Protein backbone atom coordinates (compact mmCIF):
# COMPACT_ATOMS: atom_id res chain seq x y z
CA UNK A 1 0.00 0.00 0.00
CA UNK A 2 1.37 3.34 -1.00
CA UNK A 3 2.20 5.49 1.99
CA UNK A 4 0.41 8.79 2.40
CA UNK A 5 1.38 12.33 3.20
CA UNK A 6 -1.58 14.23 4.59
CA UNK A 7 -2.42 17.85 4.77
CA UNK A 8 -5.23 19.11 6.91
CA UNK A 9 -7.37 21.29 4.67
CA UNK A 10 -8.93 23.70 7.10
CA UNK A 11 -12.21 25.19 6.08
CA UNK A 12 -13.89 28.27 7.46
CA UNK A 13 -17.55 28.87 6.78
CA UNK A 14 -17.45 26.05 4.20
CA UNK A 15 -14.60 27.58 2.23
CA UNK A 16 -11.15 26.05 2.06
CA UNK A 17 -8.58 28.38 3.62
CA UNK A 18 -5.68 29.64 1.57
CA UNK A 19 -3.14 27.92 3.80
CA UNK A 20 -4.47 24.56 2.63
CA UNK A 21 -3.30 25.25 -0.92
CA UNK A 22 0.08 26.35 0.41
CA UNK A 23 0.33 23.04 2.29
CA UNK A 24 -0.69 21.03 -0.75
CA UNK A 25 2.02 22.68 -2.82
CA UNK A 26 4.64 21.94 -0.18
CA UNK A 27 3.23 18.53 0.64
CA UNK A 28 3.48 17.55 -3.00
CA UNK A 29 7.27 17.91 -2.84
CA UNK A 30 7.45 15.78 0.29
CA UNK A 31 5.19 13.13 -1.20
CA UNK A 32 7.37 13.02 -4.28
CA UNK A 33 10.44 12.60 -2.11
CA UNK A 34 8.83 9.59 -0.43
CA UNK A 35 7.10 8.18 -3.46
CA UNK A 36 3.91 8.61 -1.48
CA UNK A 37 0.42 9.81 -2.25
CA UNK A 38 -0.56 13.31 -1.20
CA UNK A 39 -3.94 13.41 0.49
CA UNK A 40 -5.91 16.31 1.83
CA UNK A 41 -8.20 15.78 4.79
CA UNK A 42 -11.20 18.04 5.11
CA UNK A 43 -13.69 18.13 7.95
CA UNK A 44 -16.72 20.30 7.38
CA UNK A 45 -20.22 20.60 6.01
CA UNK A 46 -21.02 21.35 2.38
CA UNK A 47 -17.51 22.62 1.83
CA UNK A 48 -16.97 24.27 -1.52
CA UNK A 49 -13.95 23.94 -3.77
CA UNK A 50 -12.59 20.60 -2.55
CA UNK A 51 -11.85 19.56 -6.10
CA UNK A 52 -9.49 22.52 -6.41
CA UNK A 53 -7.06 20.78 -4.08
CA UNK A 54 -6.32 18.23 -6.76
CA UNK A 55 -4.98 20.58 -9.43
CA UNK A 56 -2.75 22.06 -6.69
CA UNK A 57 -1.20 18.65 -6.21
CA UNK A 58 -3.40 16.36 -4.11
CA UNK A 59 -3.93 12.79 -5.25
CA UNK A 60 -6.80 12.21 -2.88
CA UNK A 61 -9.13 14.17 -0.67
CA UNK A 62 -10.63 12.51 2.38
CA UNK A 63 -13.84 14.38 2.95
CA UNK A 64 -16.00 14.09 6.04
CA UNK A 65 -19.23 15.98 5.71
CA UNK A 66 -21.56 16.55 8.62
CA UNK A 67 -23.25 19.54 10.26
CA UNK A 68 -21.38 18.66 13.45
CA UNK A 69 -18.14 19.33 11.61
CA UNK A 70 -19.14 22.74 10.26
CA UNK A 71 -17.79 24.64 13.22
CA UNK A 72 -14.36 24.09 14.62
CA UNK A 73 -15.35 21.97 17.59
CA UNK A 74 -11.94 20.96 18.83
CA UNK A 75 -13.08 17.90 20.80
CA UNK A 76 -14.74 16.52 17.69
CA UNK A 77 -11.92 17.50 15.34
CA UNK A 78 -9.28 16.01 17.63
CA UNK A 79 -10.91 12.65 17.93
CA UNK A 80 -12.06 12.49 14.35
CA UNK A 81 -8.64 13.23 12.92
CA UNK A 82 -7.01 10.80 15.33
CA UNK A 83 -9.48 8.08 14.32
CA UNK A 84 -8.76 8.75 10.66
CA UNK A 85 -5.04 8.47 11.33
CA UNK A 86 -5.47 5.16 13.09
CA UNK A 87 -7.49 3.92 10.14
CA UNK A 88 -5.31 5.10 7.25
CA UNK A 89 -1.92 5.47 8.93
CA UNK A 90 -0.30 8.37 7.09
CA UNK A 91 3.43 8.93 7.30
CA UNK A 92 3.23 12.67 7.66
CA UNK A 93 0.57 15.22 8.53
CA UNK A 94 0.90 18.93 7.79
CA UNK A 95 -1.56 21.48 9.16
CA UNK A 96 -1.80 25.24 9.14
CA UNK A 97 -0.67 26.97 12.33
CA UNK A 98 -3.93 28.85 12.51
CA UNK A 99 -5.71 29.39 15.81
CA UNK A 100 -7.51 26.11 15.12
CA UNK A 101 -4.40 24.27 14.05
CA UNK A 102 -2.37 25.43 17.01
CA UNK A 103 -5.12 24.32 19.36
CA UNK A 104 -6.22 20.91 18.17
CA UNK A 105 -3.23 19.49 16.26
CA UNK A 106 -1.12 19.24 19.47
CA UNK A 107 -4.00 17.34 21.02
CA UNK A 108 -4.07 14.94 18.09
CA UNK A 109 -0.33 14.41 18.48
CA UNK A 110 -0.72 13.71 22.20
CA UNK A 111 -3.63 11.36 21.61
CA UNK A 112 -1.57 9.45 19.06
CA UNK A 113 1.52 9.72 21.29
CA UNK A 114 3.55 11.06 18.41
CA UNK A 115 5.75 14.06 17.75
CA UNK A 116 4.76 17.51 16.54
CA UNK A 117 6.95 20.39 15.37
CA UNK A 118 5.13 23.73 15.45
CA UNK A 119 5.52 26.72 13.15
CA UNK A 120 7.89 25.03 10.74
CA UNK A 121 9.55 27.28 8.22
CA UNK A 122 11.04 24.55 6.09
CA UNK A 123 10.41 20.87 5.51
CA UNK A 124 12.36 18.30 3.59
CA UNK A 125 12.76 14.57 3.30
CA UNK A 126 16.19 13.36 4.33
CA UNK A 127 17.37 11.48 1.23
CA UNK A 128 18.97 8.64 3.18
CA UNK A 129 16.73 8.01 6.15
CA UNK A 130 13.57 9.22 4.40
CA UNK A 131 12.66 10.94 7.65
CA UNK A 132 10.98 14.36 7.62
CA UNK A 133 13.35 17.15 8.61
CA UNK A 134 11.30 19.87 10.26
CA UNK A 135 13.01 23.21 10.74
CA UNK A 136 11.44 25.76 13.04
CA UNK A 137 12.42 28.91 14.91
CA UNK A 138 13.04 28.97 18.64
CA UNK A 139 14.02 31.79 21.02
CA UNK A 140 11.84 34.19 19.11
CA UNK A 141 13.59 33.33 15.87
CA UNK A 142 17.12 33.87 17.17
CA UNK A 143 17.78 30.18 16.70
CA UNK A 144 16.63 27.65 14.14
CA UNK A 145 16.16 24.03 15.15
CA UNK A 146 15.80 21.07 12.81
CA UNK A 147 13.63 18.45 14.49
CA UNK A 148 12.96 14.86 13.65
CA UNK A 149 10.44 12.33 14.84
CA UNK A 150 12.49 9.18 14.30
CA UNK A 151 10.20 6.47 15.65
CA UNK A 152 6.67 7.60 16.24
CA UNK A 153 4.19 8.02 13.42
CA UNK A 154 2.77 10.09 11.90
CA UNK A 155 5.37 12.83 11.80
CA UNK A 156 3.39 16.02 12.35
CA UNK A 157 4.09 19.65 11.55
CA UNK A 158 2.17 22.89 11.69
CA UNK A 159 3.09 25.71 9.35
CA UNK A 160 2.10 29.37 9.56
CA UNK A 161 0.10 30.84 6.70
CA UNK A 162 2.21 32.62 4.05
CA UNK A 163 5.35 30.66 4.91
CA UNK A 164 5.05 28.38 1.90
CA UNK A 165 3.95 29.53 -1.50
CA UNK A 166 1.12 28.02 -3.47
CA UNK A 167 2.32 26.83 -6.85
CA UNK A 168 0.75 26.94 -10.21
CA UNK A 169 -2.24 24.83 -10.80
CA UNK A 170 -2.13 21.84 -13.16
CA UNK A 171 -5.71 21.54 -14.35
CA UNK A 172 -5.03 18.19 -15.95
CA UNK A 173 -4.21 16.45 -12.68
CA UNK A 174 -6.40 13.57 -11.71
CA UNK A 175 -7.37 12.61 -8.22
CA UNK A 176 -10.17 11.16 -6.18
CA UNK A 177 -12.46 12.41 -3.49
CA UNK A 178 -13.09 9.83 -0.82
CA UNK A 179 -16.20 10.38 1.26
CA UNK A 180 -15.59 9.02 4.73
CA UNK A 181 -18.42 8.34 7.07
CA UNK A 182 -18.54 10.44 10.17
CA UNK A 183 -19.90 8.67 13.22
CA UNK A 184 -21.51 11.44 15.24
CA UNK A 185 -22.14 9.24 18.22
CA UNK A 186 -18.53 8.31 18.76
CA UNK A 187 -17.42 11.73 19.92
CA UNK A 188 -18.67 13.86 22.76
CA UNK A 189 -18.13 17.55 22.56
CA UNK A 190 -17.65 19.16 25.92
CA UNK A 191 -17.23 22.76 24.87
CA UNK A 192 -20.14 24.84 23.66
CA UNK A 193 -19.73 27.91 21.48
CA UNK A 194 -22.22 30.49 22.65
CA UNK A 195 -21.26 33.35 20.42
CA UNK A 196 -18.90 34.22 17.63
CA UNK A 197 -17.85 37.84 17.32
CA UNK A 198 -16.03 38.83 14.18
CA UNK A 199 -13.34 41.45 14.41
CA UNK A 200 -14.55 44.52 12.61
CA UNK A 201 -11.44 46.66 12.72
CA UNK A 202 -11.41 47.00 8.98
CA UNK A 203 -7.72 47.70 8.90
CA UNK A 204 -5.17 45.10 7.96
CA UNK A 205 -4.49 42.75 10.86
CA UNK A 206 -0.88 42.70 11.91
CA UNK A 207 -0.48 38.94 12.18
CA UNK A 208 -1.91 38.35 8.71
CA UNK A 209 -0.38 41.26 6.88
CA UNK A 210 1.94 40.66 3.95
CA UNK A 211 3.60 44.03 4.49
CA UNK A 212 4.16 45.75 7.80
CA UNK A 213 5.51 49.22 8.44
CA UNK A 214 6.84 49.59 11.95
CA UNK A 215 7.85 52.77 13.75
CA UNK A 216 10.22 53.07 16.67
CA UNK A 217 11.75 55.54 19.06
CA UNK A 218 13.65 57.17 16.21
CA UNK A 219 10.42 58.79 15.12
CA UNK A 220 10.94 61.12 18.04
CA UNK A 221 7.40 62.20 18.72
CA UNK A 222 3.83 60.98 18.70
CA UNK A 223 2.81 63.10 15.76
CA UNK A 224 5.66 61.75 13.65
CA UNK A 225 3.90 58.43 13.54
CA UNK A 226 1.88 59.87 10.71
CA UNK A 227 4.94 59.43 8.51
CA UNK A 228 4.90 55.67 8.93
CA UNK A 229 1.11 55.58 8.87
CA UNK A 230 1.21 57.24 5.48
CA UNK A 231 3.81 54.79 4.21
CA UNK A 232 1.62 51.95 5.46
CA UNK A 233 -1.39 53.37 3.63
CA UNK A 234 0.47 53.72 0.35
CA UNK A 235 1.73 50.15 0.62
CA UNK A 236 -1.56 48.72 1.85
CA UNK A 237 0.40 47.59 4.85
CA UNK A 238 -0.38 47.07 8.52
CA UNK A 239 1.05 49.47 11.06
CA UNK A 240 3.27 48.29 13.89
CA UNK A 241 5.37 49.78 16.65
CA UNK A 242 8.28 48.75 18.80
CA UNK A 243 7.85 49.05 22.56
CA UNK A 244 9.18 52.56 23.40
CA UNK A 245 6.52 54.47 21.43
CA UNK A 246 3.83 52.37 23.09
CA UNK A 247 5.34 53.03 26.52
CA UNK A 248 5.41 56.73 25.77
CA UNK A 249 1.79 56.66 24.73
CA UNK A 250 2.33 57.52 21.03
CA UNK A 251 0.41 54.51 19.74
CA UNK A 252 -1.82 51.83 21.32
CA UNK A 253 -0.44 48.54 22.60
CA UNK A 254 -2.37 46.56 19.97
CA UNK A 255 0.28 47.68 17.47
CA UNK A 256 3.24 46.54 19.52
CA UNK A 257 5.53 44.01 17.88
CA UNK A 258 8.05 42.16 19.96
CA UNK A 259 8.48 39.77 22.81
CA UNK A 260 5.73 41.34 24.89
CA UNK A 261 3.67 42.27 21.88
CA UNK A 262 2.76 40.46 18.67
CA UNK A 263 4.89 38.14 16.61
CA UNK A 264 4.71 38.66 12.88
CA UNK A 265 6.21 37.07 9.81
CA UNK A 266 5.26 39.19 6.81
CA UNK A 267 6.77 39.23 3.36
CA UNK A 268 8.22 42.68 3.95
CA UNK A 269 8.91 44.42 7.21
CA UNK A 270 9.88 48.08 7.22
CA UNK A 271 11.67 49.08 10.44
CA UNK A 272 11.71 52.88 10.65
CA UNK A 273 13.69 54.43 13.45
CA UNK A 274 14.00 51.10 15.26
CA UNK A 275 17.29 50.21 16.88
CA UNK A 276 16.67 46.46 16.93
CA UNK A 277 16.71 45.47 20.59
CA UNK A 278 16.50 41.68 21.03
CA UNK A 279 12.99 41.92 22.45
CA UNK A 280 11.80 43.59 19.28
CA UNK A 281 13.68 41.25 16.95
CA UNK A 282 11.97 38.34 18.68
CA UNK A 283 8.70 39.57 17.23
CA UNK A 284 9.72 40.02 13.60
CA UNK A 285 12.94 38.36 12.61
CA UNK A 286 11.32 35.57 10.63
CA UNK A 287 10.02 38.15 8.17
CA UNK A 288 11.04 37.40 4.60
CA UNK A 289 12.50 40.78 3.76
CA UNK A 290 13.46 43.35 6.36
CA UNK A 291 14.06 46.93 5.33
CA UNK A 292 15.72 49.02 8.03
CA UNK A 293 15.97 52.79 8.05
CA UNK A 294 17.98 54.26 10.91
CA UNK A 295 20.51 57.04 11.22
CA UNK A 296 22.80 55.02 13.49
CA UNK A 297 24.96 52.67 11.41
CA UNK A 298 25.66 50.54 14.46
CA UNK A 299 22.03 49.85 15.24
CA UNK A 300 21.52 46.08 15.70
CA UNK A 301 18.56 46.16 13.32
CA UNK A 302 21.00 46.27 10.43
CA UNK A 303 22.21 42.80 11.33
CA UNK A 304 18.83 41.31 10.49
CA UNK A 305 17.97 43.70 7.69
CA UNK A 306 17.88 42.46 4.11
CA UNK A 307 18.24 46.03 2.92
CA UNK A 308 19.51 48.78 5.12
CA UNK A 309 19.43 52.50 4.66
CA UNK A 310 21.60 54.48 7.04
CA UNK A 311 20.00 57.85 6.91
CA UNK A 312 17.49 60.32 8.20
CA UNK A 313 14.11 58.62 8.12
CA UNK A 314 12.45 62.02 7.91
CA UNK A 315 14.03 62.36 4.48
CA UNK A 316 13.94 58.75 3.34
CA UNK A 317 10.38 57.80 4.22
CA UNK A 318 8.70 60.80 2.58
CA UNK A 319 10.76 60.12 -0.55
CA UNK A 320 9.63 56.51 -0.47
CA UNK A 321 6.03 57.60 -0.13
CA UNK A 322 6.32 60.08 -3.00
CA UNK A 323 7.90 57.60 -5.36
CA UNK A 324 5.42 54.87 -4.50
CA UNK A 325 2.59 57.29 -5.18
CA UNK A 326 4.13 58.32 -8.48
CA UNK A 327 4.37 54.72 -9.54
CA UNK A 328 0.70 54.25 -8.72
CA UNK A 329 -0.41 57.19 -10.77
Amino acid sequence: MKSEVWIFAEQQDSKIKSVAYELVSEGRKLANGLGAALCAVCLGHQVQGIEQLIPYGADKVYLLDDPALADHDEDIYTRTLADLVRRYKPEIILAGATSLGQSFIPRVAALLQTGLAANCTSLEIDPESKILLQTRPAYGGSLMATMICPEKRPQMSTIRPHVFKRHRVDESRQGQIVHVDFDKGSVTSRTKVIQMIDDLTGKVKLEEADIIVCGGRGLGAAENFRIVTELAEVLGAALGSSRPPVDDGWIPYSHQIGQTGKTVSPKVYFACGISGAPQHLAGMQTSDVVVAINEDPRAPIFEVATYGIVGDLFKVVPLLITKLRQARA
Partner: protein
Amino acid sequence: MKVAVCIKQVPETPTLEIDPQTNTLIRARGKMIINPFDMYALEEGIRLKEQYGGQATAISMGPPEAQEALREAIAFGIDNAIILSDPILDDCDTLATSYVLAKAIDKLGQPDIIICGRQTTDGDTGQVAPQLAEWLGLPFASYVSKIEEVREGRMRLQRMVDSGHQVIEMPLPAVISVVKEINLPRLPSLRGLMQSKKAPIPTWSARDLAVDASKVGLVGSATKVKMVFFPQREGGSELLQGSPESQVDQLLEKLREAKVI
Protein backbone atom coordinates in the same frame (compact mmCIF):
# COMPACT_ATOMS: atom_id res chain seq x y z
CA MET B 1 -11.83 26.62 44.02
CA LYS B 2 -8.46 25.04 43.34
CA VAL B 3 -6.39 26.59 40.61
CA ALA B 4 -3.10 25.26 39.29
CA VAL B 5 -0.81 27.38 37.13
CA CYS B 6 1.99 25.83 35.11
CA ILE B 7 4.95 28.14 34.65
CA LYS B 8 8.37 27.94 33.11
CA GLN B 9 11.56 29.82 33.80
CA VAL B 10 13.16 31.15 30.62
CA PRO B 11 16.16 33.37 29.83
CA GLU B 12 15.26 37.04 29.42
CA THR B 13 17.63 37.87 26.58
CA PRO B 14 19.48 34.67 25.95
CA THR B 15 23.01 34.54 24.66
CA LEU B 16 22.95 31.50 22.45
CA GLU B 17 25.98 29.39 21.77
CA ILE B 18 26.13 26.44 19.42
CA ASP B 19 28.56 23.58 19.87
CA PRO B 20 30.21 23.46 16.43
CA GLN B 21 30.83 19.76 16.56
CA THR B 22 27.47 18.44 17.63
CA ASN B 23 25.39 21.38 16.30
CA THR B 24 23.50 21.42 19.54
CA LEU B 25 22.72 24.32 21.80
CA ILE B 26 25.08 24.87 24.68
CA ARG B 27 22.78 25.97 27.49
CA ALA B 28 21.35 29.41 26.74
CA ARG B 29 22.62 31.83 29.33
CA GLY B 30 21.09 35.00 30.60
CA LYS B 31 19.05 36.46 33.41
CA MET B 32 16.22 34.03 34.12
CA ILE B 33 12.65 35.24 34.36
CA ILE B 34 9.17 33.81 34.47
CA ASN B 35 8.05 33.19 30.89
CA PRO B 36 6.18 36.41 30.03
CA PHE B 37 2.96 34.66 29.01
CA ASP B 38 2.98 32.74 32.29
CA MET B 39 2.74 36.04 34.18
CA TYR B 40 -0.74 36.45 32.74
CA ALA B 41 -1.58 32.88 33.72
CA LEU B 42 -0.43 33.53 37.29
CA GLU B 43 -2.38 36.77 37.52
CA GLU B 44 -5.53 35.07 36.29
CA GLY B 45 -5.06 32.23 38.77
CA ILE B 46 -4.65 34.67 41.64
CA ARG B 47 -7.69 36.66 40.54
CA LEU B 48 -9.81 33.52 40.36
CA LYS B 49 -8.87 32.53 43.87
CA GLU B 50 -9.48 36.08 45.12
CA GLN B 51 -12.87 36.16 43.51
CA TYR B 52 -14.11 32.66 44.28
CA GLY B 53 -12.07 31.78 47.32
CA GLY B 54 -9.72 28.83 47.46
CA GLN B 55 -6.12 28.20 46.59
CA ALA B 56 -3.80 28.86 43.73
CA THR B 57 -0.77 26.61 43.27
CA ALA B 58 2.07 27.13 40.83
CA ILE B 59 4.08 24.24 39.44
CA SER B 60 7.12 24.27 37.24
CA MET B 61 9.22 21.57 35.64
CA GLY B 62 12.84 22.54 35.46
CA PRO B 63 16.27 22.53 37.04
CA PRO B 64 16.59 23.58 40.69
CA GLU B 65 17.14 27.21 39.64
CA ALA B 66 13.52 27.31 38.54
CA GLN B 67 12.65 27.65 42.21
CA GLU B 68 13.35 31.37 41.82
CA ALA B 69 10.51 31.67 39.36
CA LEU B 70 8.20 29.87 41.76
CA ARG B 71 9.33 32.15 44.58
CA GLU B 72 8.42 35.14 42.46
CA ALA B 73 5.02 33.58 41.83
CA ILE B 74 4.45 33.39 45.57
CA ALA B 75 5.40 37.06 45.88
CA PHE B 76 2.56 37.86 43.49
CA GLY B 77 0.07 36.03 45.65
CA ILE B 78 0.23 32.36 44.69
CA ASP B 79 -0.45 30.29 47.81
CA ASN B 80 2.02 27.51 47.28
CA ALA B 81 4.46 26.30 44.72
CA ILE B 82 6.06 23.01 43.75
CA ILE B 83 9.06 22.32 41.57
CA LEU B 84 9.23 19.18 39.47
CA SER B 85 12.90 18.50 39.19
CA ASP B 86 14.91 15.40 38.47
CA PRO B 87 17.80 14.65 36.12
CA ILE B 88 15.78 12.02 34.30
CA LEU B 89 13.31 14.72 33.34
CA ASP B 90 15.95 16.55 31.32
CA ASP B 91 15.52 16.96 27.56
CA CYS B 92 11.79 16.36 27.50
CA ASP B 93 9.97 17.41 24.36
CA THR B 94 6.46 18.83 24.68
CA LEU B 95 4.83 15.39 24.75
CA ALA B 96 7.03 14.27 27.64
CA THR B 97 6.79 17.62 29.42
CA SER B 98 3.03 17.63 29.31
CA TYR B 99 3.06 14.05 30.59
CA VAL B 100 5.12 15.05 33.63
CA LEU B 101 2.89 18.05 34.30
CA ALA B 102 -0.14 15.78 34.06
CA LYS B 103 1.34 13.48 36.70
CA ALA B 104 1.90 16.49 38.94
CA ILE B 105 -1.66 17.71 38.43
CA ASP B 106 -2.91 14.25 39.35
CA LYS B 107 -0.81 14.31 42.49
CA LEU B 108 -2.10 17.76 43.40
CA GLY B 109 -5.57 16.29 43.45
CA GLN B 110 -7.46 17.49 40.40
CA PRO B 111 -7.60 21.28 40.49
CA ASP B 112 -10.74 22.87 39.04
CA ILE B 113 -8.90 25.04 36.56
CA ILE B 114 -5.42 24.55 35.15
CA ILE B 115 -3.93 27.62 33.52
CA CYS B 116 -0.93 27.90 31.22
CA GLY B 117 0.53 30.78 29.29
CA ARG B 118 0.06 30.66 25.55
CA GLN B 119 3.65 29.69 24.74
CA THR B 120 7.18 30.06 26.05
CA THR B 121 9.71 32.47 24.64
CA ASP B 122 12.34 29.79 24.30
CA GLY B 123 10.50 26.85 22.81
CA ASP B 124 7.78 28.96 21.19
CA THR B 125 5.67 25.86 20.50
CA GLY B 126 2.46 26.50 22.41
CA GLN B 127 1.99 22.72 22.51
CA VAL B 128 2.29 21.93 26.20
CA ALA B 129 -1.12 23.23 27.31
CA PRO B 130 -3.23 21.35 24.75
CA GLN B 131 -1.16 18.19 25.22
CA LEU B 132 -1.49 18.47 28.99
CA ALA B 133 -5.26 18.62 28.55
CA GLU B 134 -5.15 15.50 26.43
CA TRP B 135 -3.05 13.55 28.97
CA LEU B 136 -5.54 14.55 31.65
CA GLY B 137 -8.54 13.86 29.42
CA LEU B 138 -9.87 17.33 30.21
CA PRO B 139 -11.59 19.92 28.03
CA PHE B 140 -9.25 22.57 26.65
CA ALA B 141 -9.54 26.15 25.44
CA SER B 142 -6.67 28.10 23.95
CA TYR B 143 -6.08 31.86 23.58
CA VAL B 144 -8.41 32.69 26.45
CA SER B 145 -8.78 36.45 26.67
CA LYS B 146 -11.34 36.67 29.44
CA ILE B 147 -12.90 34.40 32.03
CA GLU B 148 -16.42 35.71 32.29
CA GLU B 149 -17.88 33.50 34.98
CA VAL B 150 -17.35 30.30 36.90
CA ARG B 151 -20.57 28.85 38.22
CA GLU B 152 -21.89 25.43 39.20
CA GLY B 153 -19.00 23.51 37.77
CA ARG B 154 -18.96 25.33 34.45
CA MET B 155 -16.88 28.15 33.08
CA ARG B 156 -17.81 30.74 30.49
CA LEU B 157 -14.97 32.46 28.76
CA GLN B 158 -13.86 34.43 25.73
CA ARG B 159 -11.13 33.28 23.44
CA MET B 160 -9.40 34.87 20.49
CA VAL B 161 -9.40 33.09 17.16
CA ASP B 162 -8.07 34.21 13.79
CA SER B 163 -11.35 35.74 12.72
CA GLY B 164 -12.36 37.34 16.00
CA HIS B 165 -13.64 36.33 19.41
CA GLN B 166 -15.61 33.36 20.60
CA VAL B 167 -17.65 33.10 23.76
CA ILE B 168 -17.60 29.50 24.90
CA GLU B 169 -18.71 27.46 27.84
CA MET B 170 -17.05 24.37 29.21
CA PRO B 171 -17.37 22.07 32.19
CA LEU B 172 -14.80 21.96 34.96
CA PRO B 173 -12.22 20.71 35.55
CA ALA B 174 -10.58 22.15 32.46
CA VAL B 175 -7.27 23.34 31.04
CA ILE B 176 -6.87 26.76 29.44
CA SER B 177 -4.03 28.71 27.90
CA VAL B 178 -4.20 32.48 28.12
CA VAL B 179 -3.13 35.44 26.01
CA LYS B 180 -1.91 38.86 27.10
CA GLU B 181 -5.24 40.49 26.49
CA ILE B 182 -6.67 38.69 29.51
CA ASN B 183 -5.36 40.93 32.27
CA LEU B 184 -2.65 43.27 33.48
CA PRO B 185 -0.40 41.29 35.79
CA ARG B 186 0.03 42.89 39.17
CA LEU B 187 3.34 43.79 40.64
CA PRO B 188 4.52 41.80 43.63
CA SER B 189 3.87 43.36 47.02
CA LEU B 190 6.57 44.02 49.59
CA ARG B 191 4.98 41.66 52.07
CA GLY B 192 4.64 39.07 49.32
CA LEU B 193 8.32 39.43 48.44
CA MET B 194 9.40 39.08 52.04
CA GLN B 195 7.16 36.09 52.62
CA SER B 196 8.30 34.44 49.43
CA LYS B 197 11.90 34.48 50.62
CA LYS B 198 10.98 32.09 53.42
CA ALA B 199 8.33 30.07 51.62
CA PRO B 200 9.05 26.35 51.39
CA ILE B 201 8.98 25.03 47.84
CA PRO B 202 8.90 21.24 47.82
CA THR B 203 10.64 19.33 45.06
CA TRP B 204 8.81 16.45 43.45
CA SER B 205 11.17 13.99 41.89
CA ALA B 206 10.40 11.46 39.20
CA ARG B 207 9.75 8.94 41.97
CA ASP B 208 7.37 11.31 43.80
CA LEU B 209 5.48 11.76 40.56
CA ALA B 210 5.50 8.04 39.82
CA VAL B 211 6.40 8.71 36.20
CA ASP B 212 6.88 5.94 33.73
CA ALA B 213 10.57 6.26 32.85
CA SER B 214 9.88 5.35 29.24
CA LYS B 215 7.68 8.41 28.87
CA VAL B 216 10.17 11.05 30.02
CA GLY B 217 13.53 12.45 29.02
CA LEU B 218 15.05 11.77 25.63
CA VAL B 219 13.60 8.27 25.75
CA GLY B 220 10.07 9.51 26.18
CA SER B 221 10.34 12.32 23.67
CA ALA B 222 8.81 11.64 20.27
CA THR B 223 10.66 14.55 18.67
CA LYS B 224 14.36 15.15 18.89
CA VAL B 225 16.47 18.06 17.85
CA LYS B 226 18.77 16.99 15.06
CA MET B 227 20.67 20.24 14.85
CA VAL B 228 20.47 23.92 15.60
CA PHE B 229 21.85 26.83 13.67
CA PHE B 230 21.63 30.57 13.49
CA PRO B 231 19.20 31.84 10.92
CA GLN B 232 20.88 33.02 7.75
CA ARG B 233 19.21 35.97 6.17
CA GLU B 234 18.73 35.19 2.54
CA GLY B 235 20.99 37.34 0.42
CA GLY B 236 22.67 38.76 3.50
CA SER B 237 22.45 42.32 4.67
CA GLU B 238 22.89 44.99 2.06
CA LEU B 239 23.46 48.60 3.01
CA LEU B 240 22.27 50.88 0.26
CA GLN B 241 24.62 53.75 -0.44
CA GLY B 242 24.27 57.19 -1.85
CA SER B 243 21.94 60.11 -1.43
CA PRO B 244 18.54 59.50 0.13
CA GLU B 245 17.03 59.76 -3.33
CA SER B 246 19.37 57.12 -4.67
CA GLN B 247 18.88 54.85 -1.69
CA VAL B 248 15.13 54.96 -2.11
CA ASP B 249 15.39 54.23 -5.83
CA GLN B 250 17.64 51.25 -5.21
CA LEU B 251 15.34 49.94 -2.51
CA LEU B 252 12.25 50.15 -4.67
CA GLU B 253 14.05 48.42 -7.50
CA LYS B 254 15.12 45.56 -5.30
CA LEU B 255 11.72 45.16 -3.70
CA ARG B 256 10.05 45.11 -7.10
CA GLU B 257 12.55 42.56 -8.38
CA ALA B 258 11.83 40.34 -5.42
CA LYS B 259 8.15 40.82 -6.23
CA VAL B 260 7.35 41.78 -2.69
CA ILE B 261 5.67 45.00 -3.65
